[in-house]
């Protein structure tokens, strides 16, 4: 009888344990599916983040150029020094302060010239350039920045819903096939 009770108790404990294992496995599967979807979304986030960094680098380059040979360089330098000073006060870091000064100069330059348009080439290399009417574009298929980011965000949403986006080539191919991208015509020219 004792053995029977012990056996029944062992079976009950085993069932409870296995049910617990099953529930935890189910929860883990759900978490893994969620993580996998987030990973698919992150693929698009990585691409957009890289493009944004390239765009920011272009903007800073323009800021430095405005410091060197832009119009009204005295105001530009004062703006740079002020930006660097406040950057130092905020970060207490030399490079961070200088970067903030350059950003400030770039923003001043942008406020002078108006909003800058950007184009992206999606190929073996991914390039970002500024465009403006009257300047020729380098050879290649250049995509409008806003249309590309809109299509990429839409694709990222599909990834979050569970669609497998594949590697970078697959993502670029999908964007080019279904993204409704706007390509610049060859007559559009870019700013220096």
């Amino acid at each position, binding site marked *: 009888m004792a053995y029977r009770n012990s056996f029944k108790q062992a079976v009950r404990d*085993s069932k409870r*344990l*296995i049910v617990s294992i099953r529930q935890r496995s189910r929860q883990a599967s759900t978490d893994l599916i969620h993580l996998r979807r987030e990973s698919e979304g992150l693929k698009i986030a990585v*691409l957009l983040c890289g493009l944004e960094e390239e765009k920011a680098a272009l903007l800073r380059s323009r800021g430095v150029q405005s410091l060197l040979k832009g119009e009204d360089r005295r*105001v530009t330098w004062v703006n740079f020094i002020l930006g660097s000073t406040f950057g130092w006060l905020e970060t207490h870091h030399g490079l961070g302060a200088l970067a903030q000064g350059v950003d400030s100069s770039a923003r001043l330059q942008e406020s002078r010239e108006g909003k800058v348009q950007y184009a992206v080439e999606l190929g073996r290399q991914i390039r970002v350039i500024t465009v403006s009417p009257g300047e020729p574009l380098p050879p290649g298929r250049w995509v409008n920045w806003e249309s590309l980011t809109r299509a990429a965000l839409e694709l990222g949403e599909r990834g979050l819903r569970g669609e497998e986006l594949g590697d970078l080539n697959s993502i670029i191919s999908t964007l080019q096939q279904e993204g409704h991208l706007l390509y610049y015509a060859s007559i559009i020219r870019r700013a220096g």
Partner: protein
Amino acid sequence: MKPIQREKKLQVMSLYLLSFPYEEIVRTTGLSKGSVVAIIKEARAGALKVPGTTSDQFNDLRRLASELRTKGLDPSQAALGVLFFDRFQSLGVALEDIDRWANLVKDFRLDDITAERFYEAAMRLWELEEREGKPFEEIVSEYEEFSKKNTRLNEEVGLLEGRREELKLEVGNLGSDIKALKQEKKRLEDEKDALSSHVAHYAEIRDEVQELESKKITLEAEIGVKGEEVNRLKTIGFAEKHLSRLRSVLEKIGEKEGLSGEATNRKFFDSVDIFGDILEFENQRKAMKSELSSLHGEISTLKETKAGLEGAIKEAASTGSRVIAQAADQIRSQMAKAGSQLTKEIKSASKEVDTLFKVILNAGVEVGQMTEMAAKGDESREQLQKIIEDAKKRIGET
């Protein structure tokens, strides 16, 4: 008259707004005073657009420039002050806190950095960012962000691997339990076999008792035959006292019959003629007596044996039969009960183990699905890592 160029007009307006007197403007620009006055009127009327200002601000700007000049300040310094004022406001620094802020700036001032070195540092920063394709703080921020994501993913993978190991361990424990149950079942079956051999032994004892009972019946029949023979010998017995008794009987017969002793003796000896018959009869009587004595001893031995056997038989019959019967009944009953109970237990255990196996199977399916999801998650993570490296490489090449 040659028209005055727009650049010249803007130079006149710039000097005017900087509160230079008309004579100074005439001397600087080389225009006549009338032309200078006409240009200023044109600007006030709105016909001449001065970038960055409107005509209704001319008086205020000229008066402001005059006051600055009185105080020995340059308009660019005033503009710098306005920028400072705006930036102070954006940082939430009140006017009364400006002195404290200035002291703070002095505290953090880099005395050993000249403007040239500052510019040189800026260029080096720019070159660094150009080479890397991103700003320093962005590199650090990106590295920290990816490190956090990587750490989080590693932690999650570690947790999942831990869960998988726990599940393996639990399945292993269940296998051990099942093994123990099988061993217990085998032990019970061994006990059942041992009980069966005991039952067979008790059956042998019962057969022996039945054999003893049949022997007892045979002995009782033999004792009955011997008793009849003893009774028959008693009826023909003859002893010596019977001879004296015979003489006295002869004398009495002689006296009674009136015979002499001789006649009586003759008659007696006549009777002796039949002595052989009588002797034979006597021998037969002795033999019969001896046989009777032997039979008595035998009878007594048989009686003792019979009594012993009867006691033994009775005891064996009463005790053994009862015990054996009881034991057999109990064993049979217990065996039947144990067999029924064991069968029931085994059926119940088998059913519970079947249910348990079904639950384990379902759990195994879930665990399998989880493992599959984990493998897909690993694949997705590796793909993401590859995309990060690929994107860095492709974007970095530009």
